[in-house]
């Protein structure tokens, strides 16, 4: 194999590969990226056995062939090469080394046979549709903060992507929760997604997917089966196993009878929460919200450390209410609001609270209160 490729192109492809490979794995080949050159394209393939990413890119292929080499090392080398450099990758097949040349730099890297590289089995995808990058970006960006990290609740360690009924008909919906807060984000159902089986997209996949979604004009081809999900741009294909578990029935968690409505400027609210929470050094810092006619008093009382209080003007017309929340959870949901005011719907101080942006029901958040 002998190829020439521009440094920037190579960096992007290898960058994606090195973030997928398992950093400290016990199977050496999983640390490698499989480089395959044929015609005028080169593909870079990396896997941790749960996720596989393939990045196809144009290059000058002088001699077709394939080999595998440490993804992290290759990435480090390419990263340190000067911008605009032309990089030549040569593998003579016999020496067990890949030569990396650029300008006056010359590297020789150990390779492992391409035959040993595990290629992820393909799946029968029952749903294929395409969606604009900004739509997927919104679905996952606004839900991923609520993904659980608890190993015992592995079925919550991802975003549940499925088709659901909403007021205006069927929607493509992403839900994530850790039992303390929940995010439910809807988007118009893309053509072809009707048969989508509900799947739990693992946290790491969500992180890798995010790198495909930066380009506003890109369209992402999505394929879903019961066991796998695939996201593809013309250059990059990301395939991932989905979490083998049942996502809990979240619909009964979302309160429908909450009538006490508070409307507040989200940014101002978040800043105030952040300020009052400063006095407590507890990891689960409780902030008390005391609501009265058009007035919200935020307070924190940490017996060992001190106390803080701040008053905010809000729109609230219901009877007096005192309710406590984990400051971190409040900040996280408030920071999801970017266009309009945050609307909170409370019931009692022991019941879950709902938050949305203005009257937009396509993104709703639920947060469990804390006793204060």
């Amino acid at each position, binding site marked *: 194999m002998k190829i020439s490729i521009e440094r920037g192109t190579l960096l992007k492809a290898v960058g994606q590969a090195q973030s997928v490979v398992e*950093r*400290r794995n*016990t199977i050496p080949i999983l640390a490698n990226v499989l480089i395959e050159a044929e015609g005028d394209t080169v593909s870079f393939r990396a896997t941790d056995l749960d996720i596989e990413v393939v990045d196809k890119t144009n290059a000058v292929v002088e001699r077709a062939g394939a080999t595998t080499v440490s993804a992290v090392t290759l990435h480090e080398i390419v990263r340190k090469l000067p911008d605009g450099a032309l990089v030549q990758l040569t593998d003579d097949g016999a020496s067990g080394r890949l030569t990396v040349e650029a300008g006056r730099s010359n590297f020789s890297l150990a390779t492992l046979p391409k035959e040993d590289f595990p290629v992820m089995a393909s799946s029968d995808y029952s749903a294929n549709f395409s969606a604009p990058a900004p739509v997927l970006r919104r679905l996952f960006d606004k839900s991923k903060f609520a993904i659980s990290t*608890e*190993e*015992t*609740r592995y079925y919550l360690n991802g975003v549940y992507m499925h088709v659901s009924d909403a007021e205006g008909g069927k929607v493509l919906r992403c839900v994530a*929760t850790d*039992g*303390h*807060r*929940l995010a439910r984000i809807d988007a118009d159902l893309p053509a072809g997604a009707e048969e989508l089986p509900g799947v739990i997209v693992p946290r790491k996949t969500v992180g890798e997917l995010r790198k495909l979604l930066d380009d506003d004009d890109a369209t992402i081809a999505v394929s879903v089966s019961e066991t796998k999900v695939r996201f593809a741009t013309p250059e990059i294909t990301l395939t991932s196993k989905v979490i083998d578990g049942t996502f*809990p029935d979240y619909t*009964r*968690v979302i309160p429908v009878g909450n009538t006490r409505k508070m409307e507040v400027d989200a940014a101002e609210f978040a800043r105030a929460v952040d300020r009052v929470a400063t006095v407590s050094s*507890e*990891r*689960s810092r*409780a902030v008390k919200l005391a609501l009265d006619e058009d007035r919200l008093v935020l307070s924190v009382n940490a*017996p060992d450390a001190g106390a803080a209080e701040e008053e905010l003007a809000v729109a609230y017309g219901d009877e007096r209410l005192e309710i*406590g929340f*984990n400051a971190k959870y409040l900040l996280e949901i408030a920071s999801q609001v970017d266009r309009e005011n945050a609307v909170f719907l409370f019931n009692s101080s*022991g019941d*879950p609270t709902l938050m949305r942006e203005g009257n937009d029901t396509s993104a709703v958040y*639920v947060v*469990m*209160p*804390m*006793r*204060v």
Partner: protein
Amino acid sequence: MPALCKDCLTTFETGRRCPACRSPRVLSHPELFDLSIAHMDCDAFYASVEKRDNPDLADKPVIIGGGKRGVVSTACYVARIRGVKSAMPMFQALKLCPEAVVIKPRGSHYAAVSKQIRALMDELSPAIEPLSLDEAFIDMTGTEKLHGQPPAVMLAGLVKRMDEELGLTGSIGLSHNKFLAKVASDLDKPRGFSVIGKAETADFLRDKPVRMIWGVGPAMQASLEKAGIRTFTDLLRWDRQDLHARFGGMGDRLWHLARGQDRRRVSSHEPMKSISNETTFFEDTADPDILDGHLWRLSEKVSDRAKAKDMAGRVVTVKLKRANHSALSRRVSLPDTTQSADRIYRTARDLFDLVAREGPFRLIGVGISDLGPATGSDLSGDLLDPGAAQRRRAEQATDAIRARYGDGAILKGRSIR
């Protein structure tokens, strides 16, 4: 290089023998008089006490142990030469050393001797943290003005007095933190005095195995090994987030220890660190119903103790021992602290389910750690478990009934499984 004679406590600048008493027992180290965190560990404490009390035993191999479980508690150095080790089953120890004198431990006697040692240590510093009857950390920081001597001299004096006044020997580790002091005291036993300076810390740790860390037992070792971590150098390759993600709080600690950092203070009244209960079965079992009953009863015991002490824990741990004695434990950190039997049980049950297939088991244990005051516990509810609030009220009612009519007045069905 500063030097100190361990026999007459004379300090001097370099030399193989003491200029005052000509003793070869000289200790020299560039940072000898700058370090102040020490660990004192008695040499074969129980056996040494027995030998001191009965001089006939002096040259004989002595093993302290016996009782139901029949394991070696302490072996004297004569027995150790034959391969006898602490925690070894007694039959095996006697196979290695058939003429050994086996003595049943006299707990209260050792405790009394330990008090005498403690009295000597109290003269050195107010900051003493005993780990057991025969070892303690001593923080000598800032005592040089008081004693007119650097810590190293006072510590050498301590073991000298233990030897002369109590007839017992001990080993000292001197360094700049607790972790390294403890490691050092073990380097040169018996009658040792080892120093690990700041400058040599990184070099010293480099090729050492991670099992050297206090708190890294066989199970932790195995999971570290799975991650390719055997030595401190292996640890240094990991970044902090990855270690934390894989090993939780212990991961953070490992990250610091790999760099020779340990910021724990020597504290004479160490607060309680965990509350746990465990039970060993008459017969190994893999029966989920039986194990579930044990999980509940143990959770309830832990919860009762936590409630009695007005404490709550953030971390719930389940500990298991397989039929072949290999240990297994799983832990999880909750978003807030708990003392509720129901919550401890449910968390423990989830943890147990992760490893239930590895049975049969001979032991099961439940514990809480990362303790804090009870106010501030069980404050957050669970969206996915709407019945939790109701069960919490039921538990409060149960507690009230028990407080009034006794523990047997009301029981959960699953506790009689």
